[in-house]
């Protein structure tokens, strides 16, 4: 199973995402922003970081990278896409996901091991979890406050499209404690926490994040 990870200028967690895919049992495939070639991958991860220096708005310039035109077309046909942190911001700017990520309430860059609750386990990226599972996964961002119109929030909630919610306390002022969402079809998922940083006991607060990567491998086998 070939899973791609896109490197943009300013990506930071691309190598961690590639490593997580390998540890989950997949074949990690590095993809480059300046090419529109998806190299026959079966799913793609947009990693964390500060693509294009977060200039203008986080993810605003990456959205127009050549690789994104291929990803947007593929995503509209059901191709699994996971955006982590900056990747989530890029998915919102690309209009593959609704809403936007704005400056954290309190202005702090928040870097912490964050308790989360799994709300939706019907996406290809979360199928290995059970609804209600409690996870601890690192968050590290300055612009992670999820904002959307009242109508969009109502739609996300009524259609069960909130994937992850912050548990215990809301670190950044996100509406409805939202930490991750999915599109109507369920193949595109964006999360602010970093599952690729919670895959090994040695380096992470838990191994709770690995299930994102094993889930997508299982869903691809089942196709």
């Amino acid at each position, binding site marked *: 199973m070939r899973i791609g990870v896109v490197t943009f200028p300013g990506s930071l967690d691309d190598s961690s995402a590639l490593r997580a895919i390998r540890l989950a049992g997949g074949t990690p495939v590095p993809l480059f922003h300046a090419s529109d070639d998806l190299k026959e991958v079966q799913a793609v991860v947009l990693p964390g970081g500060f693509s294009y220096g977060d200039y*203008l*708005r986080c993810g*605003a310039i990456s959205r*127009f990278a050549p690789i994104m035109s291929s990803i947007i077309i593929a995503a509209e046909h059901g191709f699994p896409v996971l955006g982590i942190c900056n990747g989530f911001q890029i998915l*919102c*700017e690309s209009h593959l996901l*609704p*809403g*936007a990520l*704005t*400056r*954290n*309430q*309190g*202005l702090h860059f928040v870097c912490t091991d964050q308790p989360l609750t799994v709300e939706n386990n019907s996406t290809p990226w979360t199928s290995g979890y059970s609804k209600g599972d409690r996870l601890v996964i690192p968050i590290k961002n300055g612009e992670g*406050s999820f*904002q*959307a*119109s009242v109508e969009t929030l109502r739609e996300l909630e009524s259609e069960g499209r909130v994937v992850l919610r912050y548990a215990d306390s809301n670190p950044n*002022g996100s509406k409805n404690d939202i930490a991750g969402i999915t599109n109507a079809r369920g193949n595109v998922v964006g999360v602010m926490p970093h599952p690729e940083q919670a895959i090994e006991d040695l380096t992470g607060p838990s191994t709770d994040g690995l299930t994102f990567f094993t889930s997508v491998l299982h869903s691809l086998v089942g196709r």
Partner: protein
Amino acid sequence: MATIVVEVMLKPEILDPQGQAVAAALPRLGFTFATAVRQGKRFEIEVAGTPSAEQLAEVEKAAETLLSNPVIETFVVKVEA
């Protein structure tokens, strides 16, 4: 030569922590006039000659697709001599 100015502001319902931080800093310097501050962005786009209606329409389109995010922001386009 003219300058087309695009001003981008967060929508009123979107929390602006940067503006709040500025509002909180002003009284510490003795400036007591502000009841609230909102912070935005200003783009100055230079064009040759007087901008045509088509050019302004193009700038509007660019403001909508790249310079602002309509989910959270509004913008205005103006011409300055």
